């Protein structure tokens, strides 16, 4: 039962990653990560 759930979540997670890559989310994460976050540094 537990193994079944684990396998299902792993497959689901990989599917989500693939869908995300098709939605250009990797590029969006790069874009956000490359900008300095003024809120994070407390001057936003």
């Amino acid at each position, binding site marked *: 039962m537990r193994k079944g759930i*684990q396998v299902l*979540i792993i497959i689901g*997670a990989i*599917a*989500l990653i693939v869908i995300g890559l098709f939605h250009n989310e990797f590029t969006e*994460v790069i874009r*956000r990560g*490359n900008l300095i*976050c003024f809120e994070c540094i407390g001057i936003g």
Partner: protein
Amino acid sequence: MAGFRNRWRKPKLRKKYGFPTIFIQAISAFILNSYFYVFKRPSLYQGKGKGLICPSLNCYSCPLAYTSCPIGIMQHFAIIRQFPYYLLGWLGLVGVTTGRAQCGWICPFGLIQDLLYSIGRIRLKLPKWTIYIKYVVLFGMIPLSFITLDPVFCEYICPAGTLEAGIPQVLWISDYRQLVGHLFVLKVSILVIIVLLSILIKRPFCRTLCPLGAFYSIFNKISVMRMKVDMDRCIECDLCQEVCPMDIKIYENPDSLECIRCNKCIRICPTNAISVEIFGKEKRLESKLVVKKRE
């Protein structure tokens, strides 16, 4: 169990039990924050590495950071009103394989709290209800970011961001120093409070406020890597709780949502009652503790 109780006496703790974990935590923190080219051109790393999401809390505005912070990205996707498939898939994959192990082995801010606690002399306990605050933070920050269009956790709470990005960037870049105001003072105050509490209490931020820890904890009960306690061997000496960075008694609930799988309890257990289970297969590590038999 009674037999074990009679044969062993509670040993004194030695500092060596935590060595491998702290060593790996330090290496991880170094790898995640090793963009030393920044010393030639003050700013931050801007490359494809930022497309990778760090499995632990590590601010992407840290001048040395190579990867992106999952909590920052989660709020960013709420702000741009887009469902974060890639982020949730990645965090789900990490969570289902290792549970909260990232908190114990990778997180740089966890390492800082562990080191601060090791220098303290006075020990305080957290009230139990405080461990639920992090779930309020996790499930509150996403709708708040969605409504206010601001990364509220990063902006008003995150002490890791203040320590890794805020203070270095403000000290380093003179233009940012001109912009320092009430918000920076608030964030530094929160960081100072967390630092002071870390000297007295085990990992106060991870246990009460960290939304990423709250997210991973949901997977603790079903993760591939799990803790196992042989209750026939356990003598309930509570040494596991003494060394546990999250202050839990692992024998009460090996699947505890608070367990960060740091394995310190395995190395300290005098009867080798605790083991780790990966894909249903038990991996038994030898205890590093030498105990004397009762005479």
